[in-house]
Each structure stands twice: as structure tokens, then as C-alpha cells.
């Protein structure tokens, strides 16, 4: 007796997720915008090859090319030192988005580690969750400012002004933003631990390490992905806020926040210098938030397929 009815082609989980994601119009539009922004900052400099830090060594030439309005030679104009704004926007975007991504990776790794440990090992639960509560009670922006102020110069001396500041900011944002992820992951792990498949795995003697890697982690990927997406947005905002307060990257090292900060002094004469970086930051954060929204719906099996 063989079953001859046509079996539907098996679909993978991620194909389902993608199909659900596509129904969220805002998220799809946001994904397009985000991809365009990434292309702008990565592929853009290959096409528009002007050096973002180039200052004309000839002083007379430099004075003639500074504060230019948009033209074919300088599509976004030039700044007060005659540097090309379009090239600076691309370079600044690279740094801003890189900070967002790396800081997010650090905070997600920390958050997942602490969340899984606290949820899986009962002994660690109390201490780790108290630690999370303590971190949540810290005033984060003032502490970030203090950390940057105190450690910027020594690190810049040790690792160079760019690498040092980058490491410091990424690390500072990472260690102050893992708490939400840790709480969410812990909650999910606690619920997973009571499920039958975990009991089955334990009854055949699976060691804790493999239990976590094989059975627990794959099941908490969805909440981690959502908080990772939202983490990029908040990291980009924090970095640009630090730069805006003058405690971020050094002046000759553009990021979107830094460009905005530099533009504020010239807001009366050249408002577009504030507008472009501001729009870039806002668009990035807005698109990332919408993607997060769409992902949350797409990864929720209760909504999916309806």
C-alpha cells in the first residue's frame, strides 16, 4: 500500500519566515532603504573616489574651494576646509554603520551568554540576574560620557586615534546594552527547559555543553535576531549622540554624528550640512527599526502563515 497523493514540497523554516516578512510592506521598504544605504557607504567610495580628508595644500586654492554650494564637481558642496561633503558622508556612514554592527555583535554575544547561563544553570540564575538588574540601574549616557572622556586619550595613544576610539566606543556601547537581550533569552531558556525534547535529550545523557549548543540555542535564535536588529539602531543613535556631544570620534575622522556636530556651527549659512547627516542617521535608524518590527512578526509562529 503506497501513498500516491502528491506530497507538497517541503519548505524550510527560513523560506516561511521570508514569505511572512514580505507581507509587511513597511519592513520590505525599510530593507530596500537599508540595503541602498549600505551600498552608498560601501560601493559609493569606489565610484566617487575623492578623498574625504583631502585639504588642498595650496592655501589660496583651499580658500577658493571651501564652503561651496552643491555643483557637479561637489554634489553636496564642500565644508569649511574645502573637503568634499559627499565623500565625507560616505566615509562617515562607513564608520557609523560599522560601529552599530560591531557594538550590536558585542552586546548580543554578552546578552546571549549571560541569558543562557542564567536560564540553564539554576545556581547562576540569581547572581547573574542581580548583575543584570545592577546594570539596568546604571545611568548609561553619563557613564558612557565618563568612560569616553577618561579612556579616549590613553587608548588613542596606544592604538592610534582611529582604532583606539573605535574600539573604545564599540566596547563601551556593547557592555552597556546587553541587558535586554539577556533578560529575553533567559526567559525563553527557562521555558524551553521544561519542554519534552529537552527532557528526552537529557535522559540519553547529553552533556550540558551540547545541550545548549544543539537544543537550546537554535530555539532562541528568533528573539536574539529581533533584539540584534533593534540593537543596531540604538548603537548608531548612541554613537552619534556621543559624537554630537563632542565626546566621540576625533574631528578629522568623520562619522554622521560628528558631521552633524560640525555642521551646527554653520547652521545659519549652510543648513544643508546639518540636514544631510541628520537624514542619513534618521533613515538608517528608522529602516532598522521597521526591519526589526517585520522580523518580529515574521519570526512569530503564531502570526506566520495567516
Amino acid at each position, binding site marked *: 500500500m503506497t501513498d500516491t497523493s502528491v506530497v507538497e514540497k517541503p519548505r524550510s523554516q527560513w523560506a516561511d519566515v521570508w514569505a511572512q516578512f514580505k507581507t509587511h510592506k513597511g519592513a520590505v521598504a525599510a530593507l530596500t532603504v537599508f540595503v541602498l544605504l549600505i551600498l552608498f557607504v560601501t560601493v559609493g567610495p569606489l565610484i566617487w573616489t575623492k578623498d574625504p580628508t583631502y585639504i588642498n595644500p595650496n592655501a589660496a586654492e583651499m580658500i577658493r574651494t571651501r564652503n561651496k554650494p552643491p555643483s557637479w564637481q561637489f554634489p553636496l558642496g564642500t565644508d569649511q576646509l574645502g573637503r568634499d561633503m559627499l565623500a565625507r558622508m560616505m566615509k562617515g556612514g562607513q564608520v557609523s554603520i560599522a560601529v552599530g554592527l560591531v557594538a550590536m555583535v558585542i552586546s548580543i554575544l554578552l546578552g546571549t551568554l549571560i541569558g543562557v547561563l542564567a536560564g540553564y544553570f539554576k545556581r547562576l540564575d540569581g547572581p547573574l540576574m542581580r548583575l543584570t*538588574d*545592577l546594570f*539596568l*540601574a*546604571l*545611568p*548609561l*549616557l*553619563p*557613564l558612557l*560620557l*565618563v*568612560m569616553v*572622556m*577618561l*579612556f*579616549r*586619550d*590613553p587608548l588613542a595613544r596606544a592604538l592610534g586615534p582611529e582604532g583606539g576610539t573605535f574600539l573604545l566606543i564599540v566596547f563601551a556601547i556593547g557592555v552597556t546594552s546587553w541587558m535586554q537581550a539577556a533578560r529575553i533569552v533567559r526567559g525563553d531558556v527557562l521555558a524551553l527547559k521544561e519542554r519534552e525534547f529537552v527532557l528526552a535529550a537529557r535522559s540519553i545523557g547529553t552533556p550540558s555543553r551540547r545541550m545548549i549548543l544543539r537544543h537550546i540555542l537554535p530555539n532562541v535564535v528568533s528573539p536574539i535576531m529581533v533584539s540584534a536588529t533593534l540593537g543596531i*539602531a540604538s548603537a548608531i*543613535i548612541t554613537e*552619534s*549622540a556621543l559624537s*554630537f*556631544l*563632542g*565626546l566621540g570620534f576625533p574631528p578629522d575622522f568623520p562619522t554622521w554624528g560628528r558631521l*552633524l556636530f560640525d555642521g*551646527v556651527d554653520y*547652521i*545659519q549659512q549652510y*543648513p544643508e550640512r*546639518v*540636514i544631510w547627516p*541628520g537624514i542619513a*542617521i*534618521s533613515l538608517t*535608524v*528608522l529602516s532598522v*527599526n*521597521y526591519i526589526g*518590527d517585520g522580523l518580529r512578526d515574521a519570526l512569530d509562529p503564531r502570526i506566520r502563515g495567516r
Partner: protein
Amino acid sequence: MLTFTIRRLLLAIPTLLFISLVIFLLVDFAPGSPMSQIPLTVPPEVRLRIIEAMGANEPILVRYLLWLKQFFYVEPLVLIDSLFGTSHAEGMQRIVSWQSRSPVMDIILERMPQTLTVVGSAYVIGVIIALPIGIYSAYRQYSWFDQVGTFISMIGFSVPTFFTGVVLILVFSVNLGWFPSIYDTSLRVTSWETFLLQAKQMAMPVAVLALYNASQISRYMRSSMLDNLGQDYVRTARAKGMAERIVVLKHVLRNSLIPVVTVIALGIPTIFGGAIITEQVFKVNGLGALLINAIQGSDLPMVQTLTFIFAVLIVLFNLIADVLYGMLDPRIRYD
């Protein structure tokens, strides 16, 4: 409920102690602290005297305990003295700023009103805007009002406050000239004209912060209303023929406000942190500007005290939110 409150209060003490230690150590152990910034050309004995005058030559533990004593014992005594005209704190050493050589608390109290008027009114206005929007967009889920509201609130918390602030300055003070772009803290409200001036200069910073707060709170309000609108008791209330207005505004609203009230309480300390940026944009001479100045001038006592005050606010409002939650919702009382 009382035992729970007391237990939470007792738990807050070690939390605060730990946070103060973290802040103290972070600021103190940093390689960039002002002790290392005295130029090398200064002769060693003068250098020693400078460090001594700053009180920075004692071991770290002594300085930490001294700071704790000053913060939790001397400063409250000074406050009592100034309130009742007594003299308990006479001759006691207060926390002194390295920049201005005057007590840190006096400067903070001087700056407090500016921050409180701007941030406080912004938060109140934000809440007042957010609640009706949240209620209505939940009641008419997926209507055009809801869609527009969702979009605006998404923009509200995606666009950083320093950018909205700068755009407002660009439109309303550079182009239209309606509002001043710099906040004048020396303005005293004595007459109708000065009141108008005060309202004008507060308009933009308040608008920026209110938009940001309203967009977050209206989201919470909406989802909380949605949760409750689907409950059985709503169907029951409708089934027994109650007016729709009473069902929504009495039964559903009261229950949905419970989590929102705690969110509002939890948000109060974070707005002080967020106000740092807004104060910088509009040059408001408040606590945020004070902190930035102290950080740039390596004024360690000021930085430590201010940061710790922010931490105290967070712990305090967490406590208030927890207790409020228990009071409003008997189902989750802890005792």
C-alpha cells in the same frame, strides 16, 4: 504590600552602594584622571601639594568612604540646616567641586530648576498627548488614524533628539524667527511679557522632548489597550448592554493604564539622561550642561556626584514603579 515595600527599600541600599562603588572606581582608576594631567614640568614637591590640595593622595578606600559619608551624612545635614536654621553640619567637609571650589550640591541645586521646568513640562505634555492617541489607535486598530500614528511614533523614536532639535532651530528660529534658539536662564518670570518670553524659549526644547516621550508612551498605551479589548470581560460588558463609551473609557482604560503607569514612572529617570542632549542643543543651562562641563574639565567630584544622583533617581523610580504596580493590580501583589 508594606512588607514588600520595605523589602524593596532594603534591597535598594546594596544596589546603590554597589553602583556608587562602580562609578567611583571607574572614574578613579581611569588612566586619564586629572592626577596624571599635571604637566611634567611641575616640580615633584609642588605636584605633591597639588594632589594633596585635591585630597587625592589618600588611599582609594578612604576617599570612597569619605565621599559616602559626605553624600549620605553631611549633605542631608546641610539641607536640614538650611531648612530649619540649625547648625548640625558646621565645620564638616562637604563635597567640593575641583573647578569652582564651591560645594557640588549648591551648584546642582542652582541648576535643578532649569532642567526640571524643561524636562518636567516636556514629560507631562508628552504623556497628555500620548494617552488619547494610544487609546484611539487601539480602538480603531488598522484605521488610517492608527497607521499614521504608528508611522509618526516610529519616526518619533527613530529620529535622534539632537536632529529634531536642530531642524526645529533651523525652521523656527533661523528661517521664521519665531523662537529664540538659545535658552536664557537668567530670565525671571515677573510679568505677562516675561511669561510669554519664557513660554517662547521653552517651546522648542519641550516640543522635541515631548515628541520623543509621546511616541514611546503612545505605543505602550496602544498595545496595552489592544490586549484588554480582546478580553472576555469586555464582551460581557457589551453583552449586558453597556454604552460603548463606558466599556472603553471605564472598563478597558482602567485596566490598560496599569502597565502604562509603571512605564511612565520608569521613564522619568531616563529622560534626565536624554535631556543631556537636548540641553546641549538649546544651550539650556541645566544639569546636563553641568555634567558635560564637568566631564570636559575633569571635575571628578562633580562627575561622581551627578552620575550617582542619576543612579539614585533610576533606583528610586524603579521602586516606585514596582510598588505602584502592586497597588494598582491586586493580582500581582507579592505578599
